[in-house]
């Protein structure tokens, strides 16, 4: 059952060939049996899941149930779930039980989707390897001595290990696409503002976006209609027409203009990754697409601009964790300042503290123009590169990550080495564009991701382009050897 596509699962549920309870129990059993080896879940909500499954079965029995009714999925532990601990991978929120649910969690619950549990992640989504989680790192199901990527490493690993058919995730600098790439699954970060962020714990508000991970583009298309809703509660949510994301999947790619940025194939790209991406590009040519060499000349500014903007916004967003209203509080505070400082020092991990300090530094008097303002200008240049490119091409393709999954601890103690892991994904967030990663090969038994970058609100085209590739290739169907 766990190898069926979401379309097949929907069909089984709607025709009552399988009940939601059976399906949910099947995935809960797999989690209980296999997840101790991967650590992809922080919380498994077995009891609630079975209750939701029974309610879904009742709706299915009545007829006219929504398409997704009874389908199990997992939520990244960055999304608030009423009554279920939402940790954001941090000791700070280890005891936090939200009094409300994120809009996207409610959207799925209303559609009858069953929540299996909450997935592990880098602390406050700050990391590219899942090594910063308070709950310990997630292991890559393809090679358990390697990282699953981050920050949505738990969501990626649980889908790769067939512990859930799909999972929600979030992406600030590559946190959906990079782990999707390293775990051999498909992941979509929609356009900035497309998806409600109400109830998603904020990291860098001008970059954060919620999205999806599943095995195929078709699976994502089936889930995306329910993820997407205009939400007045999120003031950054854009009121833009919502298409049926399933509608364009089968369109032929004849005449599609694919931009291939020269800057994404330079120094630092693993030869095996480059070869897999080249082969994918050739496949697209065989489908009638035309490759156009393009340049994104300000690409090299992406990582530096990101590491000004993201910490600056994080230092502001994380100021809410003060030990007073919710979350961790230190023991026996001497005075109010001691309460603030020790609660935060003891509740946050090293990478989070480092980013808060950097953010405070770049925003402090005398440095604002040199760093933050300059980064926002660089961001404009990066965006203009994409605007120019999309005058010549319909979609941009390249690698998602510079190399396949790396070993735990191999990036050493220097944060800069880890930051370069997101060198191809960050520009998309800075520009607010949608990005996607789909599997396009294996190197030394580890998956490689192909990145698709679309124009604003071009999610339907991206899913179409990804689906047409997956119709003619089988990389998205491959499973780690340990998974039967």
């Amino acid at each position, binding site marked *: 059952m766990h190898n069926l596509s979401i379309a097949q699962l929907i069909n089984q549920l709607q025709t009552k060939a399988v009940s939601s309870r059976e399906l949910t129990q099947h995935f809960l059993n797999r989690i209980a049996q296999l997840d101790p080896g991967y650590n992809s879940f922080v919380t498994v909500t077995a009891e609630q899941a079975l209750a939701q499954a029974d309610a879904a079965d009742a709706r299915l029995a009545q007829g006219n149930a929504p398409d997704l009714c009874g389908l199990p999925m997992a939520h990244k532990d960055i999304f608030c779930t009423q009554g279920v601990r939402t940790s954001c991978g941090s000791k700070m929120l280890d005891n936090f039980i939200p009094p409300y649910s994120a809009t996207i969690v409610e959207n799925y619950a209303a559609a009858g989707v069953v929540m299996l549990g909450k997935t592990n992640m880098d602390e406050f989504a700050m990391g590219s390897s899942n090594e910063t989680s308070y709950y310990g790192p997630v292991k890559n199901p393809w090679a358990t001595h390697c990282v699953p990527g981050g920050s949505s490493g738990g969501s990626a690993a649980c889908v790769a290990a067939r512990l859930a058919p799909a999972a929600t995730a979030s992406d600030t600098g590559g946190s959906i696409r990079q782990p999707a790439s390293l775990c051999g699954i498909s992941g979509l970060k929609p356009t900035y503002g497309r998806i409600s962020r109400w109830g998603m714990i904020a990291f860098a508000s001008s970059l954060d976006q919620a999205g999806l991970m599943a095995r195929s583009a078709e699976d994502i298309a089936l889930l995306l209609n329910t993820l997407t809703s205009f939400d007045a509660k999120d003031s950054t949510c854009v009121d833009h027409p919502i298409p049926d994301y399933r509608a364009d999947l089968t369109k032929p790619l004849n005449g599609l203009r694919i931009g291939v940025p020269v800057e994404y194939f330079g120094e630092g790209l693993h030869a095996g990754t480059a070869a897999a991406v080249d082969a994918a590009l050739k496949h697209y040519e065989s489908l009638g697409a035309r490759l156009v060499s393009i340049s994104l000349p300000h690409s090299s500014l992406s990582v530096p601009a990101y590491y000004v903007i993201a910490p600056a916004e994080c230092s502001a967003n994380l100021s809410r964790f003060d030990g007073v209203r919710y979350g961790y509080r230190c023991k026996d505070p001497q005075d109010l300042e001691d309460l*603030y400082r020790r609660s935060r020092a003891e509740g946050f991990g090293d990478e989070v503290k480092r980013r808060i300090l950097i953010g405070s530094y770049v925003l402090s008097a005398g440095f604002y123009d040199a760093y933050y303002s300059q980064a926002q200008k660089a*961001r404009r240049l990066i965006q203009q590169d994409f605007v120019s490119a999309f005058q010549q091409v319909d979609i941009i393709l390249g690698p998602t990550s510079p190399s396949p999954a790396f070993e735990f601890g191999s990036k050493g103690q220097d944060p800069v080495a880890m930051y370069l892991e997101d060198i191809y994904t960050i520009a998309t967030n800075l520009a607010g564009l949608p990005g996607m990663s789909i599997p396009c090969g294996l190197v030394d038994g580890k998956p490689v991701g192909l990145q698709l970058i679309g124009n604003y609100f071009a999610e339907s085209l991206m899913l179409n382009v990804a689906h047409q590739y997956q119709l003619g290739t089988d990389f998205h169907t491959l499973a780690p050897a340990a998974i039967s």
Partner: protein
Amino acid sequence: MEPSEIEKLAKLARLHIKPEEAAEVAKRIGNVLALMDQLQATNTDAVTPMAHPLDAVQRLRADLVTEPNQREAFMAIAPATENGLYLVPKVID
């Protein structure tokens, strides 16, 4: 960045960095700041800073009460409360 600057910054950010860790933290932050120096080399004289990817402006709504009062639910998850108030160490003698 000097380790002495770390303590000032930590105070501003309401964090605490142990003195023995300050040098290591200063070194790592220095590496990140060196990365950022690449930005300084870019000519951005005629460039408008980009605050929002879609150049959107803040949406406004009617000034009406739309949210129910959830005081009890919010107080229930606080570390220390009394009579519907959040408790903190004494601020005024």
